[in-house]
């Protein structure tokens, strides 16, 4: 239950981080792809008075000779693209690490709080003398029971 919750949280965070990461690197590399696209578009425009070169000037046709990959990625833009993917993966991993760590920290703090709460309730009840103090003790025991259930449900057993 808890592991599944953590996993869902981790995946959601990773997804959010990946989506956010996709924005930035996509904005930087375009300088390369945009200039290539611009070059390609310019190549399709016949210069006034120039002789029309072969198939590359055909509207809608690939600017690359047939037989070569149709992807417009040059070695430079392939490198940029690879860098962008690596960057996204790194961010994704960090997001995953952080959300898992956040889950661990939540349970760790909850467990530490529960341990301290147990000690406080134990002393509270040990020192109770009159009816009012006994009532406080009973009330605190009830709250401790609820807190224990909550922690056990979400975190499993705490390592004391």
């Amino acid at each position, binding site marked *: 239950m808890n592991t599944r919750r953590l996993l869902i949280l981790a995946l959601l965070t990773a997804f959010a981080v990946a989506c956010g990461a996709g924005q930035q690197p996509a904005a930087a590399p375009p300088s390369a792809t945009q200039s290539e696209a611009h070059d390609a578009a310019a190549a399709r425009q016949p210069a006034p008075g120039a002789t029309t070169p072969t198939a590359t000037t055909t509207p809608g046709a690939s600017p690359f000779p047939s037989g070569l990959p149709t992807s417009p990625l040059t070695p430079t833009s392939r490198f940029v693209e690879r860098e962008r993917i690596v960057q996204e993966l790194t961010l994704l991993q960090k997001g995953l690490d952080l959300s898992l760590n956040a889950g661990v920290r939540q349970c760790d703090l909850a467990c530490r*709080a529960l341990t301290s709460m147990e*000690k406080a309730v134990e002393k509270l009840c040990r020192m109770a003398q009159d009816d009012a103090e006994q009532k406080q003790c009973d009330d605190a025991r009830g709250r401790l029971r609820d807190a224990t259930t909550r922690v056990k449900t979400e975190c499993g057993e705490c390592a004391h």
Partner: protein
Amino acid sequence: MSRWFVFAWLLLAGCSNPQISDVPSTEVMSFLSATQALHRQADIHENANRQGDALAALERIIALPQPRATPEIHEVLADTHARIAETLLKQGKLDKAIDHVRKGLAHAQSPTFFRGHLLEVEGAILEAESKNLRAAGKESEADEKRKAALARLNEAVAIHESVIRHQLGDAGTK
């Protein structure tokens, strides 16, 4: 042991993504790292039953040059003062113990685990003081301390309850 999760998380949060945490300063990271090492040292001494050495390691944390105060630094200092106070309580040094609780509370003013823990330790110290006063035949003073201890412990219970609720949401109740 679980204390290391908190320190590790603080360190990871500090170095993983500056957009998610505001703890990237080198001074803060160094302080947290040194604190972790000294807490480990204190663990080793405690396990070998060398309370004095454990205490010395913990007191070195307080004496470390502190970077600008961030919430993480306050948490670490509050936690360390609580641990020192617990160690002093075991040694029967109640005045010094209560002094560390007060110093710790100055670093934990909002209702966090760290404040709740300090109040629980304060309750234990006040209980010990109450017992000493009773043993010395000072009944009314002893009862005053006992009531003060109950008040701190009630406060600790309330804080821990809200910390657990806050950390885990409303799942698992009723």
